[in-house]
């Protein structure tokens, strides 16, 4: 149908508003015109030849529109540097504040580590110890009524759900993990030791958060880690077993299991079940 054209004679009759055209032909002409720019152009020329009434009407509409446009408010020029579609990459302000806080905390741990290394160097690296739970501060703000002003809109939208949660988590990790990597590089804590625990905690918080609320899950996991691992290793001044290279397969297995749990609950975070 693409290269077909409405016959010139039929088009002239159509433009003139001939009542004698068969309904089926009429329908075919109109359906074709909707999709064919070149035939529409020919129709324009045919209308000018065949129907002075239509031409006059078009001119009248044009005049009236021009008058209305002249008195209507004009839209201001787009701000410089404003990019179309930027909005979808913007994060809730509460999350941004949390991410800034996380970076400051990493810097604080880094400076304590450096002080310790200048001295006797007896304590395990704080950057390494806190790295697994570092993203939780930000993750807690990914899906929170208190920290996201537009929460009600997000909750009612079709995009609400795991996809949006993961997208925001990913953006948060893209800030936290480079900061941790830089700090870890300065004190000799290789990402190989903390990256998997970091991901396991993040995924664990998301999976638990669906049941008890994301803030509560993040606080609970961070508290458990600090009390169970960070505290004892600072008191005994030994590096924790859980962050030894031998524990990595266990972390990998844990991350995989949690990721599968998350993937199975695809209806998570759609609003109705988790009323947090």
């Amino acid at each position, binding site marked *: 149908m693409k290269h077909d054209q409405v016959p010139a004679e039929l088009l002239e009759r159509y433009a003139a508003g001939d009542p004698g055209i068969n309904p089926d032909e009429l329908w075919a002409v109109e*359906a074709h015109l909707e999709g064919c720019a070149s035939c529409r152009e020919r129709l324009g020329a045919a209308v000018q030849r065949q129907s002075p009434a239509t031409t006059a009407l078009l001119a009248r509409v044009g005049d009236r529109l021009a008058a209305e446009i002249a008195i209507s408010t004009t*839209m201001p020029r787009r701000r410089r540097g404003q990019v179309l579609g930027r909005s*979808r990459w913007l994060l809730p302000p509460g999350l941004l504040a949390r991410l800034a806080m996380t970076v400051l905390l990493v810097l604080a741990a880094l400076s304590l580590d450096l002080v310790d290394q200048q001295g006797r160097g007896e304590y395990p690296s704080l950057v390494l110890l806190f790295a697994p739970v570092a993203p939780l501060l930000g993750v807690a703000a990914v899906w929170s009524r208190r920290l996201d002003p*537009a929460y*009600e*809109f*997000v909750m009612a939208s*079709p995009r609400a759900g795991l996809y949006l949660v993961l997208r925001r988590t990913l953006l948060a990790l893209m800030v936290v993990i480079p900061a941790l990597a830089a700090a870890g590089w300065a004190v000799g804590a290789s990402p190989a030791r903390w990256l998997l625990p970091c991901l396991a905690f993040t995924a664990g918080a998301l999976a638990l958060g669906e049941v008890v609320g994301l803030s509560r899950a993040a606080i609970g996991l961070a508290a458990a880690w600090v009390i169970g691992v960070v505290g004892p290793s600072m008191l005994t001044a030994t590096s924790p077993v859980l962050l030894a290279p031998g524990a990595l397969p266990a972390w990998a297995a844990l991350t995989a299991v949690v990721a599968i749990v998350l993937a199975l609950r695809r209806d998570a975070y759609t609003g109705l079940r988790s009323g947090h």
Partner: protein
Amino acid sequence: MVRAVDAAETAPTSYAWAIHAEELKVRAGRRMAVDGLDLRMGTGVHGLLGPNGAGKTTFMRAVATVLRPAGGRLTLLGETVNGRFDLRGLRRQIGYLPQEFGFYRRFTVREFVEYIAWLKEMPSRDVPGAVQRAIDRVRLTDRADDRMRTLSGGMVRRAGIAQALVNDPTVLLLDEPTAGLDPDQRLVFRALLRELAVDTCVVVATHLVEDVAAACTDVVLVDAGRLVFQGLPADLAAAGADVGATGADLAADSPAERGYSIILRRHRERIGAQP
């Protein structure tokens, strides 16, 4: 072939009511705010009236699928909401202006509406045009690229209405849309409502009886989570007109406002007499 109107748009609807609540119960915190509500709403503008705490906002949130019904049945566009988890298709057809809403203050009006359009999963090809149209409809064209924090309260409200309109919803829920609008803007808003009434099921929850009398095709009065009255705005005014018959000494100004008070009082007397 590219068609200007696709088949889905002209398909006949397979449901009788856009919103159909049967014995609906919805909890707000611990309280049962909507308690056995029976309601049917089709195309048109429905004014949802009621005293404070009558369950208007809770009902709106349930219809926006933000709150899950605690009992009864809620059917939207022919689909039952209870117990369903895949609500994406339904949510794409809903526009919702919450009573109180936050926004990201550094967003411009356009970015705010654009963000909501993205959340509503609109095809990105359609977004710029739809956003512009929504902003034009609420008369914010000249402020489109100003940041949200520079807007007055009424303008923020209008930006809120624009985001609800952006996806051309089949069910449009507006909770207190006229709060903070000046009289001139309220007239513009009423004209917009009449325009939408042609093909949309609009629910306007409000305290302002005169808004309902002026722009709605249907009045719904709720009290304590139950339906008290559903009828034409003229019926409401008629109830207020026979003020002498009831001996009411109400200081209300318009017949519609008098009607509202009288119907509500009669209902409460009837409820009070029952137990």
